[in-house]
């Protein structure tokens, strides 16, 4: 085989892997190379996406291009980077060693990006260096002698401008030349013997990069000032957070208002399909399955597609422009108080629309533990499916009056429910980080790339990817869950003389009635217990289910209105409040659990999430119910509210004294000896020719540190 050429042996298309640091324009290059002929799958066992695409070179070779996750080094720090390493080394299951590696680097940042190439070089695989973003480098006045670079590195070098179609011409020609040349089998042992580079090896790579660049860079460009100046505003200690807040407000606004019309269309479409079916089909089980199971259930999830799309549009735009890392920068300190990473901010934000895209967005968090914690708390963010339930119960039980300065009490309660979710999420995150998911706090080492205009093709392809993933999930796991739930709430059929609604006699009814003694301590009656079972499909289905239980019929609006009145008569305030508290926490959404199962690749974590959220919901509902009962039913709610406000005020006053020092000091104390100031590195002191003089500066620095510590202590103490 060694003598043949890859193109000639014709057994399979050649495979080329794109490897490069994040922000090197790798994905843009990939999109330009392959266009829409892309396929997104998953690597077995992990949630890392495998992106591949087909490409036909000018000489007619078919090439499969693999876009590997961005990585600064072969020493993997995250699951994504581990995939890059394993594919390049041929260790990934079901993935053969790529025939050639294209190392993509940002030409404006060569002295940081070339190091990866030097790590790849000893592997002995055919290698091409692509100097990407060459146009930007040239605009900055930078001139690179590519021939000298190729000579010094011993590797073919091409320049690319990934944003433009013709910018990849040289690269395609190189690939052709490589595929027509003799195929070599070298590098197999080199990849097998690969070891993680030691710190000193990395230093060596840095020196080598410097040497090469001294030879190859003719004129060093002027660094870009645009990003710097923009950062002065966007990362400003006061303006920065305000701008972020404004952006978040804008996104929220867009998610809820722009999506309204398309959501109505989907709703209307589903309703007309339902009507058409009920008009044209004879009463049968199949009809019931289609209408009550498939359309109602799946429609209840599909309806969130517009919101998800708008949300992801914003996320992709922010991601592509480079602002997302700035948002993570601004939020990192806040999030790390709960043991989270700054990057967890976006997934949690997404979860306000729906937890499923939020859980999907957690992929951007590199560290597995941080990612897991973020996934586990994402369902605590109040998603829009809870709104119908909240609206129903608030309308039924909370009087529509204004308190203090024109703030509506109903709105206040709604806000409190949102706040309860956020506070609960942060507490759970902190608790998880202290107990189950202990483990060193991961360092934040994040490149802040230069700002650039988002590339429309990247954004559209990214959006299309999300739609495909979402629809595939609906088509498979969600659909099957809905069918099972329909089965449970339909069979067995009610007996001939049954006086209760049909669902009472079904399996769902049985389950609900069996659960009733368990739910009685938190004030739930059998009607609620039954409604909770189909409510597992999607939270808002519980409203329809309650309608069924109380034997109401009509379209959704009418049911809600009638139900509101019925509930106000039949339930106590304590029960309603307990149900609200339940809904803040309860994992009333199987689709979310399925998403967790997929993203964590284990039923164990999905089950864990289910159990902990159930426990939390039960405890919260129990406390709410008992407190509400103790405060004496309907008349006392004002006192309860007053008490709550007093408690909050007290907390606010005491805040300086209550310090969650756990994470702040814990992590740094553990790593305290990483500080150079307290321990000079390199055994520099041993070889230091200053001899005894060494102790003096050391003391000086130590005492200077002590002074600083005292100073900060004085600043922070009240």
């Amino acid at each position, binding site marked *: 085989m060694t003598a043949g050429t890859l193109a000639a042996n014709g057994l399979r298309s050649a495979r080329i892997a794109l490897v490069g640091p994040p922000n090197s324009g790798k994905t843009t290059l990939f999109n330009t190379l392959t266009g829409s002929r892309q396929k997104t799958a998953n690597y077995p066992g992990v949630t890392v996406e495998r992106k591949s695409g087909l490409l036909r070179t000018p000489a007619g070779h078919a090439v499969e291009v693999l876009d590997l996750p961005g990585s600064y080094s072969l020493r993997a*720090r995250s699951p994504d980077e581990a995939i890059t390493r394993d594919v390049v080394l041929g260790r990934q299951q079901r993935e053969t060693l790529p025939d050639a590696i294209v190392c993509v680097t940002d030409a404006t940042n060569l*002295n940081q990006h070339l190091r990866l190439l030097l790590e790849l070089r000893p592997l002995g695989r055919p290698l091409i260096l692509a100097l990407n973003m060459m146009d930007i480098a040239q605009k900055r006045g930078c001139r690179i002698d590519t021939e000298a670079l190729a000579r010094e590195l011993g590797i073919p070098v091409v320049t690319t401008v990934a944003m433009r179609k013709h910018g990849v011409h040289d690269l395609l020609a190189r690939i052709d030349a490589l595929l027509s040349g003799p195929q070599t089998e070298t590098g197999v042992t080199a990849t097998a013997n690969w070891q993680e580079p030691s*710190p000193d090896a990395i230093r060596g790579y840095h020196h080598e990069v410097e040497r090469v660049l001294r030879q190859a860079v003719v004129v060093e460009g002027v660094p870009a000032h645009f990003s710097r100046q923009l950062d002065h505003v966007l990362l400003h200690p*006061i303006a*920065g957070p305000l701008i972020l807040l404004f952006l978040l407000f804008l996104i929220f606004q867009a998610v809820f208002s722009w999506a309204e019309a398309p959501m109505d269309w989907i709703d209307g479409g589903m309703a007309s399909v339902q009507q058409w079916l009920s008009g044209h089909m004879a009463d049968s089980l199949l009809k019931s399955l289609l209408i009550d199971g498939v359309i109602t259930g799946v429609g209840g999830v599909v309806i969130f597609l517009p919101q998800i799309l708008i949300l992801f549009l914003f996320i992709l735009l922010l991601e592509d422009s480079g602002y997302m890392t700035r948002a993570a920068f*601004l939020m990192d300190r806040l999030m790390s108080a709960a043991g989270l990473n700054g990057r967890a901010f976006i997934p949690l934000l997404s979860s306000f629309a729906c937890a499923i895209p939020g859980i999907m967005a957690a992929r951007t968090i590199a560290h597995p533990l941080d990612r897991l914690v973020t996934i586990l708390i994402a369902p605590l963010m109040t998603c829009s499916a809870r709104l119908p339930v909240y609206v129903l119960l608030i309308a039924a039980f909370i009087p529509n009056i204004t308190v203090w300065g024109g703030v509506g009490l109903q709105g206040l309660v709604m806000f409190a429910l949102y706040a309860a979710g956020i506070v609960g999420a942060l507490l759970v995150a902190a608790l998880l980080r202290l107990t189950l998911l202990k483990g060193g706090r991961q360092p*934040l080492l994040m490149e802040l790339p230069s700002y650039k205009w988002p590339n429309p093709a990247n954004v559209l392809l990214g959006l299309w990817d999300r739609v495909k993933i979402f629809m595939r999930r609906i088509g498979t796991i969600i659909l099957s869950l809905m069918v099972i739930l329909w089965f449970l709430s339909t069979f067995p059929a009610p007996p001939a003389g049954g006086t209760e609604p049909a669902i009472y006699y079904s399996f769902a009814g049985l389950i609900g009635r069996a659960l009733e003694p368990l739910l009685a301590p938190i004030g739930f009656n059998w009607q609620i217990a039954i409604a909770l079972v189909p409510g597992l499909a999607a939270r808002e289905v519980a409203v329809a289910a309650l309608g069924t239980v109380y034997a109401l019929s009509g379209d959704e609006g009418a049911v809600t209105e009638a139900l509101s009145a019925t509930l106000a008569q039949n339930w106590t305030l304590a029960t309603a409040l307990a149900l609200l508290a339940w809904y803040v926490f309860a994992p009333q959404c199987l689709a979310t659990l399925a998403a967790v199962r997929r993203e964590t690749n284990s039923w164990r974590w999905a089950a864990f999430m289910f159990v902990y959220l159930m426990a939390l919901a039960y405890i919260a509902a129990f406390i709410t119910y008992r407190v509400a009962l103790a405060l004496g039913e309907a008349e006392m709610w004002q006192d309860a509210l007053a008490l709550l406000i007093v408690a909050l005020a007290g907390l606010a006053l005491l805040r300086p004294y209550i310090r969650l020092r756990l994470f702040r000091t814990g992590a740094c104390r553990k*790593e305290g000896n990483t500080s150079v*100031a307290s321990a000079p590195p390199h055994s520099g002191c041993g070889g230091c020719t200053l001899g005894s003089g*060494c102790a003096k500066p050391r003391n000086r620095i130590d005492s200077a540190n002590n002074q600083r510590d005292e100073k900060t202590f004085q600043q922070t103490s009240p």
Partner: protein
Amino acid sequence: MKLSSESERQAFQLGCAVGLGFTQPLGQMRPGGMGRILAVSGSDRDIERGLLEMGFVEGARIEVLHHGWLRRDPLAVRINQTMTVALRRCEANAVLVGPLLDQEPEALAVRLGEPALS
């Protein structure tokens, strides 16, 4: 004065900078502060390697650009005028920064009055 090996040169440079009181951990620097990295270390090799991989290497020129709005954490640091990296103060303290010497350490030593060490 003879400084034969690279490590001796580095040690000497470090000694000079420390002697002049010009060094500080990166975590203590304020926005606008500039310098050259003298040493990157850490009891945790992974942190050391992580820092090195992001470009925090001895001899690199750095400039602190911004800090976070809450407790002035994390930091945004520009490395070699090409790349900006965000990191927490905690990890930044593993990087020791000296003055932005544009001369060779020998020249600095002359300015110091040539300590008796040849």
